[in-house]
């Protein structure tokens, strides 16, 4: 009896184990919604926005609202074909997650929202589909700004994403702090900065920390360096930092830091530096065009409050003439520089329904209303379609001010031909931080040379 019981027990253990193994090995059922006549497939996207988040104080309010409105509209227009399922992802984790998912052969979305730097990282990791033929066959392709499509083109000349909005960098300025206008040269800036300091204010605030993978390298630092005629690459994929223009720009920046023309929060990371602009204790903030989404509420130098606590605060302050947008100052004879990023869409390698992405992209790019809705929504920039740039929605005070800054600038993507932008930005910003903040006695050229050699050793 006892022996029989033991045998039965062993057989049960084996049976249980085998069924667990089979259960693990079976593929998970694909999630689809069936109707009586056709099969509706899921169109899975990764955005940094979350349509389910309706918090009016959320930093991502505009993008969240866009998805909340657009998803049902898309589902209605493609009823019986696609069911849009959005998966919100943290903006600074999305790239790593997608690359890891592609490499591991895991579930990837049908479409991912991306920026210029992410595109090259994805291409380097074979994470985006080549969509050259499809993009070139679309009616809106001929309408693209050449610079925009270049940002989506890989080193192999193939197109890997569709640029939907351009996001240049510029300087938001409290007009009350600069009654004579924002300086156009470094020399003028130093004079104005000294005046503001004597009045108890900071000339400017900016992202000057090494946080977020050295992203400071392509924020204010790039605007300044490119305005001095500097660059980060030699046009052949090598890093080139040790050039007189870069040294001059960093020498200037070092001087402003030593004189305390910026709040200490500039170097603390976490975007706390924005606070000094919010309360007008700093007169200017160089940042991306879309920065207005995050810099609120505002108190103008004259005490006027713009305190709805969302993106309309900056728009209202611009409409009231309290905030103006200007290019970065540049040495006499130079054209101000700025970083030009794009916002767009890519289709990951392994996407189950790339046709759904084609349908969505066509859906917004072929209809001017939807294009504009995207551009002033999550795009947060200028349209990449030339025909959309004259749209009345682009003639608001906000866009008029932005145009003043951009038309006076020569914007380019900071990474140039560097194929490992994530590594490059980290190296560059660590070097710049050391030179301007950590040890202002260090030889600039030597430190820049060291950083470029470390990068180039891995080419």
């Amino acid at each position, binding site marked *: 009896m006892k022996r029989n019981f033991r045998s039965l027990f062993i057989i049960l253990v084996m049976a249980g184990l085998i069924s667990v193994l089979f259960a693990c090995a079976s593929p998970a059922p694909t999630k689809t919604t069936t109707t009586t006549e056709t099969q509706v497939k899921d169109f899975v996207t990764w955005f940094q926005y979350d349509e389910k988040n309706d918090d009016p104080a959320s930093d991502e309010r505009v993008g969240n609202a866009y998805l909340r409105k657009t998803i049902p509209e898309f589902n209605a227009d493609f009823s019986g074909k696609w069911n849009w399922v959005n998966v919100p992802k943290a903006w600074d984790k999305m790239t*790593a997650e997608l690359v890891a998912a592609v490499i591991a052969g895991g579930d990837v979305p049908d479409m991912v929202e991306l920026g210029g730097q992410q595109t090259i990282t994805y291409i380097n990791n074979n994470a985006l589909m080549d969509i050259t033929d499809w993009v070139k066959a679309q009616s809106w392709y001929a309408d693209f700004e050449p610079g925009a499509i270049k940002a989506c083109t890989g080193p192999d000349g193939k197109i890997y994403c569709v640029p939907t909005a351009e996001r240049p960098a510029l300087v938001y300025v409290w007009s009350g702090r600069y009654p004579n206008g924002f300086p156009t040269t470094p020399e003028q800036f130093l004079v104005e900065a000294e005046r503001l300091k004597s009045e108890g204010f900071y000339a400017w605030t900016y992202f000057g920390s090494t946080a977020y993978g050295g992203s400071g390298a392509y924020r204010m630092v790039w605007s300044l360096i490119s305005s001095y005629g500097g660059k980060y690459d030699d046009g052949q994929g090598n890093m080139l930092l040790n050039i007189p223009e870069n040294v001059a720009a960093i020498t200037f920046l070092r001087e402003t830091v030593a004189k305390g023309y910026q709040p200490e929060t500039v170097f*603390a990371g976490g975007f706390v530096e924005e606070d000094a602009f919010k309360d007008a204790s700093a007169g200017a903030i160089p940042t991306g065009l879309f920065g207005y989404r995050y810099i609120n509420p505002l108190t103008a130098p004259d005490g006027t409050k713009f305190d709805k606590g969302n993106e309309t605060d900056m728009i209202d302050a611009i409409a009231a003439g309290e905030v103006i947008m200007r290019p970065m100052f540049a040495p006499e004879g130079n054209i101000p520089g700025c970083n030009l990023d794009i916002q767009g869409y890519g289709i990951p390698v392994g996407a189950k329904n790339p046709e759904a992405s084609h349908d969505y992209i066509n859906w917004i790019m072929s209809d001017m209303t939807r294009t504009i809705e995207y551009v002033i929504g999550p795009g947060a920039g200028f349209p990449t379609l030339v025909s959309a740039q004259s749209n009345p929605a682009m003639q608001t005070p906000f866009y008029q001010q932005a145009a003043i800054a951009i038309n006076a600038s020569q914007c380019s993507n900071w990474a140039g031909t560097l194929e490992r932008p994530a590594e490059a930005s980290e190296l560059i910003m660590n070097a710049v931080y050391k030179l301007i903040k950590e040890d202002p006695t260090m030889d600039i050229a030597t430190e820049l040379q060291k950083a470029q050699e470390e990068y180039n050793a891995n080419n």
Partner: protein
Amino acid sequence: MRSAKPRKPISYHLRKSLPFWLILPTLIVIIIVQVYPALYTIWLSMQARHATGWEYVGTQNFERLFGTGLFPESVGHTVIFLTGYALVTLTLGFVIAILLKQKVPFTGVYITLLFIPWIIADIIAGLIFRLMVTPDYGLFSGILQNPALFPPNGLSILTAARPAPWFGSFPFPPSPAMIYLILAASWRALPFITLLILAALQTVSHEVMESARIDGANLVQLTRYITIPLILPTMVVALFFLMLGGINGVGMVFSLTGGGPGTTTYVISYLLYVIGWGQLRFGRAAALALLIAAVNWLLILSVLRITRINDRSR
């Protein structure tokens, strides 16, 4: 002609193989969550990812890792962090445990309060400590940034530069941010270490202590010659616990300093995160992970050896 061996019944074979079947699920789990990832990491450490896929690069990932400026710097920071972390936590833990051992009113309440940091996640604790010293509006910024207290310009923990190094390029003395990181990490680990030491103190024989007192030993002598030797094995275990946690933990660095200001709080685990998930250089990250794993193995072997010696001596 030999007669055929009598065949054993199936139940006999099943019974004989029972241990195997019982440990098989555990083996499968270990293979999936430990053996496979370990082998994959070794494979990965010899690969580089390109647009065309993986490429075998031999030991190049290790060579390039050693060639980066951040690697030796991070090793230096890790040594400083671990030393400070272990010293502060063990010393404070010992002192607090001694105090708690005294029969004072509300000891239970003190222990409960003491345990609060332990239940807070690393990331959250880091964020709280960060908020306390954020320049301009942090809770302690008013005091720290007062030039009268910290001449000449006040002290901004999250942005202050590190002092000039005393020993070549070894990052000592540490930056204010590193000291703050050590204090924050110690605060977080203190409850567990204190309770560990307190439990060990309870095992110290009252009679031995009493005899020493009668022989004229003062408090310092009691601690030095009786208490510490008796609880030393527990202290060693606590030390290795702190070392393992300190060398692998990244949450506190991530949320408190983000490796900054500059690179002054880049420890080896944070460097691993940056290379792997920031730069997406998985091959190089795997190489670094293997080096960290080797240090971990050495630490674990040391603990095993020390505890085994201790067992033998009993």
